[in-house]
């Protein structure tokens, strides 16, 4: 029997040597004259163990990691003889970090070959769509609504209500748009699922299409993700060939097709109306709402626009029923959230779990603290527009409302950990700088306020009239918060104000120093 070796083709694994490993395994197998089949998968999301390679055994897939190219010969021997190895992690499914998770969306990611429609189907793929086809629009809407799924891009708007609005709209054409412009630092779940289980995203979008009566979909992927673009394009071709895109999907009367569009490096295009402008071939200027995209979206037509993770949650909900999804979670945050642990963290990666886990559990227990070994001082949750949380707030449960109550947001579920060497003045300035560079320019508080914000924070850093300038920054933040159309200008104040509030000591010289100076 062929030895079957699984090596990720996920960008994070490739960036630390997975491609070189694949070549090395092929070479050593040829040298040893052993028949080996190498299957390139997505990533399981245990990023600190990447490249993680697996071999099929009678007990299940046994993992090794991190495996460098130099490790390959000895790892290969261990695989062939089922013998011990310092990099051997045991059966992959039994690794505690993986076993503790509730993988509903990421169940197949890292397991299957993302290029193979057969593999996807063999692992339960397209069961959701098959059920959806038998249910019809109204019953699908009931399921999606009952699941409690809320927009995973960060805004948390109930997906069922959005879909229903589009389903009820009358128009000659409607569109499904997938927002894969995952620009937030510390987030990579969209990238991972597009690279590791692209058919899942297609299935989710197709389901949306048949529900609301749209026959065309676009997935707008950022240009910084060339591997994801390639994976989605390959999957679309395979799905079309397999009868899952195009006319008469899965032998039904429904038609749906989709294409990939690539962004061009503008962060603001992750905002849904800016993204629609960009898809239409224009500058990514934010639109005022209303009208909502559900009524006047792409090319002025009713449009469902959802994040990758929202579409990716749909197949499970349809296949297993709304209740199976809604049984997880807390309060109004139902189901699971793929959380991304990043930055200065010992065990970083993708951790999908039910809402309700606390920030402290995520950072200290699951993440294992910092990789530098220094104490955790601050964590930024939700990307460049998310608040910095100190240890004192580590009891905050991961839940849309709980984070909002503490002037933060969960955003797209990214958590970036900083150790005690962080200078929060620098982070506050960066937040304003980033906003200044990426502002689309439509709203004055965002366009000009961000530049004034950088200048004023610099004055604080230089010790110029610190108290007055701090008051000015706070005032400016309030203007941006309430005077901007979209989250870029509106939420940039979150990292700035949270840095000021929770890490005041970085901005104001200690009293003893003041006395000495006088």
């Amino acid at each position, binding site marked *: 029997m062929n030895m079957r070796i699984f090596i990720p083709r996920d960008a994070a694994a490739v960036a630390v040597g997975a491609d070189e490993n694949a070549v090395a395994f092929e070479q050593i197998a040829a040298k040893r004259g052993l028949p080996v089949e190498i299957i390139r998968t997505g990533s399981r999301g245990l990023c600190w163990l990447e490249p993680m390679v697996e071999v099929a055994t009678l007990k299940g897939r046994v993992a090794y990691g991190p495996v460098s190219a130099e490790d390959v010969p000895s790892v290969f021997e261990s695989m062939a003889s089922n013998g011990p190895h310092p990099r051997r992690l045991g059966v992959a499914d039994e690794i505690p970090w993986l076993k503790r998770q509730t993988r509903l969306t990421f169940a197949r990611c890292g397991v299957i070959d993302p290029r193979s429609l057969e593999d996807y189907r063999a692992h339960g793929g397209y069961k959701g769509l098959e059920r959806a086809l038998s249910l019809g629009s109204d019953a699908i809407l009931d399921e999606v609504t009952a699941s409690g799924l809320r927009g995973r891009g960060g805004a948390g708007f109930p997906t069922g209500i959005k879909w229903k609005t589009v389903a009820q709209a009358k128009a000659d054409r409607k569109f499904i748009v997938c927002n894969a412009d995952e620009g937030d*630092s510390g*987030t990579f779940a969209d990238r991972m699922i597009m690279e590791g289980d692209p058919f899942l995203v297609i299935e989710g979008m197709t389901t949306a299409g048949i529900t609301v009566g749209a026959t065309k979909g676009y997935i707008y992927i950022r240009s*910084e993700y060339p*591997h994801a673009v390639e994976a989605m394009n390959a999957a679309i071709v395979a799905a079309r060939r397999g009868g899952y895109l195009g006319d008469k999907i899965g032998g039904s009367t429904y038609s749906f097709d989709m294409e990939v569009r690539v962004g061009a*490096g503008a962060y603001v295009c992750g905002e849904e109306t800016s993204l629609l402008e960009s898809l239409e*071939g224009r500058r990514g200027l934010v639109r005022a709402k209303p009208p909502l995209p559900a009524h006047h979206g792409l*090319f002025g037509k009713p449009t469902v626009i959802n994040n990758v993770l929202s579409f990716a949650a749909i197949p499970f909900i349809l296949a297993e029923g709304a209740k199976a999804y809604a049984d997880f979670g807390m309060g109004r945050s139902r189901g699971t959230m793929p959380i991304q642990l990043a930055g200065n963290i010992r065990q970083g990666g993708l951790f999908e779990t039910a809402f309700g886990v606390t920030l402290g559990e995520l950072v200290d227990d699951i993440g294992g603290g910092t990789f530098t070994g220094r104490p955790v001082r601050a964590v930024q949750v939700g*990307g460049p527009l998310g608040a910095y949380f100190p240890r004192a707030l580590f009891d905050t449960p991961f839940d849309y409302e709980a984070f909002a109550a503490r002037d933060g947001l969960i955003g797209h579920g*990214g958590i970036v950990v900083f150790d005690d060497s962080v200078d929060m003045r620098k982070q506050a300035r960066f937040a304003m700088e980033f906003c200044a560079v990426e502002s689309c320019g439509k709203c004055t508080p965002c366009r000009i306020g961000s530049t004034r914000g950088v200048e004023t924070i610099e004055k604080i850093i230089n010790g110029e009239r610190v108290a007055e300038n701090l008051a000015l920054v706070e005032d400016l933040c309030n203007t941006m918060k309430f005077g901007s159309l979209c989250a870029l200008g509106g939420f940039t104040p979150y990292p700035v104000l949270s840095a000021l509030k929770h890490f005041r000591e970085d901005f104001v010289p200690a009293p003893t120093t003041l006395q000495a100076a006088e």
Partner: protein
Amino acid sequence: MTAVYEPSYEPWDQTRGAEIIAEHAKQEGATLVILHALQEAFGYVPEAAIPMVAQALNLSRAEVHGVFTFYHDFRHKPAGHRVLKLCRAEACQAAGGDALAARAEAKLGVSLGNTTADDRVTLEPIYCLGLCATAPSAMLDGRLVGRLDEKRIDALIAEAQR
């Protein structure tokens, strides 16, 4: 064994440019698609192509110029022979990216966003490659590199300068 991604571009040619534009012009909202295709072929979007795109899409030159200048990706002149992008977003900052960026600037003698005098290397910031749990990261042309440290970035710079 590292795959080679050294880019090569064709010189600007009006007929070829017109072909590329015509190939994509029928798509809905084709402006970005065309600009990407032109840059892929020529390594940048030549000034002369802007009015051609405008005509093909029945837009004004100003509109196409506006789109072209809005997006960070599009270049108005060719980049250096190799393009080294350093991720400068928060996760990479938290993992020591600031010091590595400063090191790269010092080694190459240019600040982020510029090309070396010999046109060998363009050094650019990028805001998030999505490799945030294997940070800091970089991309040399199409090739991704994670878990950067001084040794790895030095090797990357040496490769870019070759």
